[in-house]
Structure formats: C-alpha cells, structure tokens
C-alpha cells in the first residue's frame, strides 16, 4: 500500500469527461473529486483548499449541470465530478460578524436579537437551506432563533462548517453561520447543565490530591512501571456510568 494523492497514478485508466472550471473546459478522469480534478487540470491551490476531508469549509463549490436550471452545491474535496458540470469555488464570502463579550452573556434570546438584529430580516425564502453543502436546515434554525429557541438552533446548526454559502444567497443579508456560532456557544455554556463531576475533579487536582500517586509513577523504573501498567484494572467496554474499580487507592 503505497500511494500519494497524485491523481494521475491511480486514475490513468479512468474515462475522461469534460468539466468547465470557471467556464473553461478541461478533460478529467470521471472518478475524481472536484478538488483532485482541478489539480489534475493543472491548478495549484492556495485558497479554496483546507482539510481535504469535508469539515473545514474552505472548498465550497457551486455548479450547474446542462439542461438543469438549479444551482448545485458541494464541497470540492467530497463531490465527484460529473460530465459537463460548470463550476466555480467560492473560497471566501464577506459576511458581517459582530463582536461580543461572551462573559457578559447569559443565554437569553434577547442577547442574540441585540447582537444580530438582522435576524429579523429573514424572509423565509429557504435559499440558505437549499445552498448548504452539509444539508443543514439553515432556515429552520434561523426560524427557531426568531422564536427565541437557542437550544434548537444550536442542535440544528451543529453540522455547520461555516463555509458562508448561506450568507452568499441570503436576500435578507444575514450572516447565518456567525449567528449559529453564537447560538451554539450560548447553548454549550448556559443552556446545558454544567458537569458537576468536572468541577469536583478540577478542585481535587487543585488541592493536590493526586500528587503522591503521580510522583510515585514518575520515579518508577521502567520495569515496575510496565508491570503497573499491565496490571491496571480495565473498565469493561460494556460497563455503565456507575462502574467503579476494585482498587480505589489512586482515585
């Protein structure tokens, strides 16, 4: 198994199909993603390419197909080319992001209304949802926010990769993905109960509860350490939340 991403190496046998990169025709192997096809055609990426794994939002692409009035969208790194597709990437879209002091927020809907008053310019046209390459229900989370339901908006927007395509199509000029980010942070910090066990553990660490055990481990010779490691008690894969180990000396 030895393969780099040099497209031509594994794709030499594949059938070539025409695609139009920003209106210009190139013949590329039909099995490539848009990203690899653009590189195959001879482009060298600076913008428009990030994680190459479908999560960073750098390579959002819009395209049309012959005989189809609809605009299609996809991530260049995840979408396979189609014959005669007519595409461009949108590596950046100017959208307004408000700055706010997060420590002064408490998770009230009014806070979002104040920070992003443009929320109410949404005309519910649904163009944002249609253009989302991640199938996020953008209009629905905006609607939830208009009703003050931050939690619902946070959940609906969870898969957002912040590519900005929603904002590019919005006739109300909303920066949906920035608003959703604020909603998720408020949800995480204020609308979800804090983890009590976490507070306890942090307090115990600050009180140096584990220092003796760690000092002992640090001073151990490798053989003893290996033995201690191998003899450590394993929590069974199917154990429930309340499982406790037999040895609680170092808890």
């Amino acid at each position, binding site marked *: 198994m030895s*393969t780099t991403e040099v*497209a031509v190496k594994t794709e030499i046998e594949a059938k070539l199909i025409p695609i139009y990169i920003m209106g210009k025709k190139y013949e590329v192997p039909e099995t490539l993603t848009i990203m690899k096809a653009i590189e195959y055609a001879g482009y060298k990426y600076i913008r428009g390419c990030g994680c190459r*794994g479908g*999560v*960073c939002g750098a390579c959002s692409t819009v395209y049309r197909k012959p005989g189809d009035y609809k605009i299609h969208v996809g991530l260049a790194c995840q979408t396979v080319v189609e014959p005669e597709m007519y595409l461009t990437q949108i590596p950046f879209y100017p959208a307004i992001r408000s700055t706010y002091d*997060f420590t002064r927020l408490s998770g009230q809907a009014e806070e979002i209304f104040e920070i992003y008053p443009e929320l109410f310019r949404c005309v519910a046209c649904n163009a944002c949802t249609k253009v989302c390459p991640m199938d996020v229900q953008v209009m629905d989370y905006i609607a939830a926010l208009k009703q003050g339901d931050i939690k619902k908006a*946070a959940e609906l927007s969870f898969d957002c990769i912040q590519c900005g395509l929603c904002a590019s199509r919005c006739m109300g000029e909303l920066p949906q993905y920035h608003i959703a980010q604020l909603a998720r942070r408020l949800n995480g910090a204020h609308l979800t109960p804090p983890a009590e066990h*976490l507070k306890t553990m942090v307090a115990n*660490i600050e009180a140096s509860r584990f220092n003796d055990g760690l000092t002992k481990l640090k001073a151990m010779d490798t053989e003893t350490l290996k033995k201690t490691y191998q003899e450590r008690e394993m929590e*069974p894969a199917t154990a429930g939340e309340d499982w406790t180990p037999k040895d609680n000396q170092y808890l």
Partner: protein
Amino acid sequence: MPYPEELKRLIKVVESTRVERVERKKKNEEVPFMSLEERHDILKYHPDFIEEGRRELKVGPNKGYRIAHEMADILEAKSRVDPAKIDLSKIDYETDVLVIGGGGAGTAAALLAQENGSKVIIATKLRHGDANTMMAEGGIQAATKGHKDSPYFHYLDVMGGGHFKNKPELVETLVTKAPDVIKWLESLGCNFSKFPDGTLKTIHGGGTCRKRMHFAADITGAEMMRTVRDEARNRNKDIAVIEFSPAVELILNEHGHCAGAVLYNLETEEYLVVKAKAVVMATGGCGRLHVQGFMTTNHYGATADGIVLGYRAGVKVCFLHTVQYHPTGIVFPEQAEGILITEKFRGSGANLVNIDGRQFVNEREPRDVEASAIIRECIERNKGIPTPTGKRGIWLDSPMIDMLSGTGTVQREFPGKYILYKRFGIDIAKEPMLIYPTLHYQNGGLEFTSDGATELPGLFLGGEVGGGTHGENRLMGNSLLDIMVYGRIAGKSAADYVRTKAQNGKLSLEHVIKYNQEVDEAGVGNGRIAPMLLPDYTTPEIKAKQLTARYEGTIR
C-alpha cells in the same frame, strides 16, 4: 460510488459472522489484548521499523539521528529566500507575541497570551482554523470522573501507549491540566456530548483503561476549533490574524533570543518582517510529507514547517523517528481515500474483520499495534480485502454498533461519516467500511519543557510541533488535549516572558546564513528548499508542459 458486486459478495461473509461477534461483545468475551511481548513482535510490521525508510541527519543539532527520508529532506535543505536580501530594519508588523499557526494550539496560545496582557498576532498559512484540529473527530481525553478515574490512570495509559519512552514531566502536566481544559472549553460554550443532567459522556479509546474520551458527536475537533476561534475573533482589538502568510524563518536578535519571524504572503509573494518580544510555534504536523508514500488524514498545510524553522535556530528534535499511522483510514471509495475514520467507531464496539469475516485483533489496542496488525493481516497473511483500485483493506464492521446500542446509533453518533458515505451510496449503519492505515500524526517534534519553553529564549511551543509528550506513539484523544494544554501554557509563558524577560535588540538572520553554509558544506542539500509550505499535486504531464513556470520547491 457504492460497493461493487464483488465487494457486496464479500460483505455477506462479514454478515455471516456478525451476530455471533455481537453476542460475544455483549458478554464481554473480547479478543484478548496483546502482552507487551506480543506488541513488541507485531511492531516489526510498522512502517517506523523499515530501516530503508530512514537515514542519518547530516546537519544541525541532531546530526547523526536517523529519521524518515521525507523528514530528513526538509531538514537537509536551504532557506526559501536568501536571508541577505531581507531588510530587517524595515519592520512590517510589531507585536508582543507572535503565534505561528492558526489551529487549536495557536488559537489557545493567543487567547492565553492576550489574557495575560499581550498584544498578539497569529500568522497562519491557510485560513484561521484550517488545521488538523478541525479534522480531529474522536475526542479529547481527561480524567474527569473521580469515582473511577484519576490523572494517575491517565498517566499510566499515556506512558504505555508511548512505549514508556515519554518525558514524564510532560505527561504529568498533560494529565493534571486535562480536566481544567475541559472546564475552560465548557465555559467558552463548547458543546460536548452530555447526559441530560450535565454529566459528560465518555467512552474508551485505544489503550485507555477507563472511559475518559469526551466528545462532541463525531466532530469534536471542529467544535473545539470553531469555539476558540470565535472567542479569538471577539478579542480582535488585541489579537490580529494574518492569513495565507506562513512563517518561513524565525528571526533572532543580538542577544540570541527569538524575536520574530519572516512571513511569506502566499498571494502577493512578498516576504514580511514581524518583530515580536516572544514567539509561540504552533505549526502542527507533517502528514503532507507523505512519509513512505502513505496516504494521509492531514490537512493541506501539514508540512512540518515549525520543525524546520526551530531546527535551523538550534532547537533539537526528539521522537521524530516515529510517525503515527492511524489504523483506520478510508481506502474505498477512492475519492475519500486517506480520510480518517475515528477510533470512536471501535470504541463503540465495531470489530476489525478480515476477508473470512474473522476478527483478528482486539479493536482497542494502541494505534501503532492496531495499524501493525492490519498491515500484517493484509500483507503477510494475505487476508485483506482487494479494492477495485488494486489496494487492500480490512472491514470495520460499523453495523455492529446499531446492534449493540440500538438502531439509529450510527447515524446519531457519527453524523459526519454517515452523510459522507451516504453520498457514495453506502449506508454505514448497514454495510461495513473498508479501511487501511493512513499517515496521521507526528509523534515527535521540537524539544520543549512543561512550561512550553524551548532551549531558545523567547521561543515557546504548543501542540503537534513539540515532541516528548507522547513518546513513540500517541493515544487517541491526547492530541486535542495536547494542543489545548500546551497551547494555553505556551501562550501564558510567552506573555510572562514578554513582561519580565524580553530584551530589545538588533534583529538577525545570521543563524539561517550559517545553516545554509552547513548544508552546503555537508553537501546534502541537493538544491532543496524548506519549509515546504504546501505539497504539490501537479501531474508530471502538466509539469512537462509548464515550460516557463518556475517552482520554488513545491510552490509555483
């Protein structure tokens, strides 16, 4: 593309043994974990142990150290730009702390430096947040559940995963600061998966003795990254971000302290001088070097630039002889090749299964052991599954998860991967995934201490660019932890240094001039330049026709 008929036929074999494997799992009858001796024996199948794959370094502070050719190539190389051409009297940007790298470690460092009174510039090669952090799926380890876990057990697991070679102080800091990092992220509004009462959900990862892997569905890294990035954007009065401008050299001053960096604006092709009182290196890893020709899970900019810059400035490297191959990268469909399938699938119960439908290894061994077992199964035992593009893979039996935890679990817990495969016409709740090890993590890096400092005064570091924390092999969930623990520490230490120790002085690139001479004298440069900055995927056919194009290394 969906599975072709031939693979569908082989999937039937997996299905024929699935019920029995699920039953065994329910009864806790696992394939036994390997003993340390068995682990040692199987590691000979690991790419790190292929001697032809590496060579001795001929220049720099680690002369004589054997590392992978691809890594040696970028260390035995000259600077991108002639240092004599750079006018250091013309300062383009001046700041307290310069953070090089805009991923999780860099952003955490920027936040802490700012909180401790510094003005910060983040210089990053791509966009802020385009980093491996964003891609980390599985989770972040921390001993947060005191009724069954503590930093003591986390420490043991980290050491065992790293073959007991890790630097103890670095591990101690990692595990004792871990819960505080989760608490910090929670306070910033990071949406970790929780039970209704607020208890954090945790699962096992390879090599953990307690379930301490916290997660945010299957996009943990993305959720963490977008949260800290959002916070950095709120502090834009003090934290400026310069995108598409990687650092190509560190700048020292007449006292021999680190005092800034030369940036290269990838779009305008200018070289720019940043003067800083302290520098935090947070450039991440090296996947795009494609060590030993392996596919990689890493983002487009993972070319180990920070190692090159630090090494030239005299900072030693350690543990670079080991590279982590994630056991489970997609090998089919071809267009998703190299993409990581989080270990959480295995933590949730999915077996690794060969062409006969047999489980051949416990799916929760440390990563190097797991990867070696997969390579042995495919290459030595010839029990791999042939793909339509002539490669071999192993089944990761994801439908088991729904059978163990209820229908709908796969779709709910792994939404990212579920959608990705659905687009290819594969339902991973019903059909297994075809995987093979993929280049994932640079275990080693620049030497540093538990306060985030390096031997070069004024240079701090956090995250994957540093070596020693994970020894020879990192466990799942400890890289997201590493970037946050050491990113925060580096940021604070840098700000403290700015206030108490930084000395103003004349800027210098003398160390680069000397390094270039050393490369020439050793006769090893072969015309190479570094840092690489971006990989080159232009085909040879196109290159042959680019008659007037000029490449500086891999950049046109």
